[in-house]
């Protein structure tokens, strides 16, 4: 057991999976010699060689498309998309090819790939280096979408994602990379996809969230505890598969729900969470379901005032949760 940053936990997870399974390869733009623009894959080229850690041409559709083929022919590719904002040229390969392969072939083929992509804002990335893209992919049957919030979860979820014989989008919030640390076991462990974790127990308001927002919600819970308001924080960890039971269970207890994400509101994944509750736990609700999310503008601005106005923060969660508790 060692204390690691979020980034180190991911690197350690990759290293461990590559060491135990020769089929795991890594590729993408700048991942080999440079070790990735965020340094996540640093050292892997030296350890595993140029056959398994590959600097690819600048072409996302080819990165994912070749990963599909390589997976079919026996490898377990873990391609990296340099920023989630640049995943869209590969959208067709992910949504139409990777995610539909098993179904369309009636189970003849499977595509075990894990697409890693740094996402999210609050890091002065502006419109094209801050986006949250999870909702697009969580809508796609055949896909899994994993979004860890702690170093421990990151490593365990990554191992489970690589273990899963279907495409997984593994989203790493950039603002977490070096900002949080936590205990991470040295040995390999798997955290099952589709299992939420109650990161804090509470009784007044349920906050449903994932990724960077989890830490913010916990901070808000801390603040509000002093005011006698008790928040329950549910970290989804993966949004597809979605842990409906965990959501419904918490709603039944608190009767008040706030869904928090950084992505745009309309059609964001928060809508699905609301819909699940409206389907399965409607009569336990004591207040309208609140969605606290990024604004419905194309993406967050680069200028600090614009970025701040867009981002969901611990303060905004605190405020909204306080109001909801008083409803």
């Amino acid at each position, binding site marked *: 057991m060692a204390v690691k940053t979020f980034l180190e936990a991911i690197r350690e997870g990759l290293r461990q999976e590559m060491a135990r399974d020769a089929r795991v390869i890594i590729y993408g733009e700048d991942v080999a010699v440079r070790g990735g623009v965020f340094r996540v894959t640093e050292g892997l080229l030296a350890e595993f060689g140029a056959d398994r850690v590959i600097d690819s041409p600048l072409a996302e559709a*080819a990165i994912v*498309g070749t990963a599909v083929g390589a*997976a079919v*022919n026996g490898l377990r590719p873990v391609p990296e998309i340099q920023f989630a904002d640049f995943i869209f040229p590969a959208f067709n390969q992910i949504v139409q090819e990777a995610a539909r392969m098993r179904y*369309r072939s009636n*189970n003849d083929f499977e595509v075990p790939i894990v697409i890693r992509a740094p996402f999210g804002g609050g890091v002065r990335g502006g419109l094209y280096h801050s986006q949250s893209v999870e909702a697009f992919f969580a809508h796609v*049957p055949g896909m899994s979408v994993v979004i860890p919030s702690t170093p421990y979860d990151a490593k365990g979820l990554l191992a489970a994602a690589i273990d899963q014989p279907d495409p997984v989008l593994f989203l790493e919030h950039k603002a977490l990379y070096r900002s949080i640390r936590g205990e991470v076991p040295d040995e390999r462990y798997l955290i099952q996809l589709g299992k939420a974790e109650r990161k804090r127990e509470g009784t007044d308001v349920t906050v449903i969230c994932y990724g960077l927002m989890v830490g913010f919600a916990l901070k808000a819970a801390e603040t509000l505890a002093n005011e006698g308001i008790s928040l329950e924080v549910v970290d989804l960890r993966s949004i597809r598969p979605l842990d409906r039971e965990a959501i419904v269970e918490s709603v039944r207890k608190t009767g008040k729900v706030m869904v928090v994400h950084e992505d745009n509101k309309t059609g964001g994944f928060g809508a699905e969470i609301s819909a699940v509750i409206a389907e399965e736990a409607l009569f336990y609700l004591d207040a309208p379901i609140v969605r606290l999310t990024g604004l419905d503008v194309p993406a967050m601005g680069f200028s600090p005032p614009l970025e701040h106005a867009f981002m969901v923060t611990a303060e905004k969660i605190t405020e909204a949760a306080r109001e909801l508790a008083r409803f």
Partner: protein
Amino acid sequence: MWASVLRDTLSGKDFRPVQATGERYRQENRKGRFGLPESGLTPELMKDMYYVMALSRALDDRLWVLNRQGRGPTVYSSNGHEATQVGSAFALRRGEDWIVPYYRDMTLVLAWGMTPREVMLHFFAKAEDPNSGGRQMMAHWGSRRLHMLSTGAVVATQNAHAAGLALASKILKDGRVSACFFGDGSASQGEFHEALNFAAVNKLPVIFFNENNGYAISVPLNKQTVVQDISARAAAYGVPGIMVDGNDPVKVYEVTKAAADRARRGEGPTLIEAKTYRFVPHSSDDDDRVYRSREEVQEQKKHDPLITFAERLLKDKILTEAEKTEMAAKIKQVVDDATNYADKAAMPDPATIGQYVYGGALA
């Protein structure tokens, strides 16, 4: 070995992939006898080629009849492309190498080991359809058993898949060659270029096989691109670009064989362009009279590979008229059998609709 095609397609029985057949080819080769280079093509194999071409044409004709009678859904034909497809399939190691077919490729998949029954099961979208269990529209081929990767409908995605298959082959050193097939229209998609470039940089054992029939549905090649040879694109990537008469199955066989050998030697990808023509509309939903003259089609039919190849085999005494007649009778029987078999086969159970979205822990 290829004589087994005859048996397989007749019986519809399970096909067992045969490993490494190159040695066998070499042994059977009779250099010079037919003016061929040492490509491994024997009279026996050429007869098999013709058989598959004739079978494919007959099967295709039947599909159109079924469609026009209202008994079958939309047809996508390889009618006109038979030589191209049979020539390329025979040059690869069936069941060991990977092919990633195009929807235009019924002849290819027959040559690769799919049986007429299986084709018909796919056409009728029956539960037994080995391509997709009736889930996909006709001509979305795929079979793990045959090493034929499943394809969707978005054109040119298969090019990256083939490069990826080859990437794994290179890393795993499994000696396989991958070949993807695509049309002239598909070459306008960016992914074709991305895949070719990716394969070139990594020297992957892959063949990009372009079936240039001069049209993308109604759009003629001169509206699709300026340079009418798709193979000209190869030079920009440091890859050999080879043009071949797609009506000559032997020439297609030779260039494909050369490309496969090159790939197996670790020298990287090849782009092959076979000039061909589609004699029928794009699909049974299309009406090609809107966009091309009957004269043009008639003119092209003079080079119908089915006729010209038969003539050549007869002339070279590889095939006799009697054999040809016998073959035709066999083919009719095979096509009838396939039609009847598939017609009577069960539809997919709607209860299976939710199956195979995920595997592993999430299944």
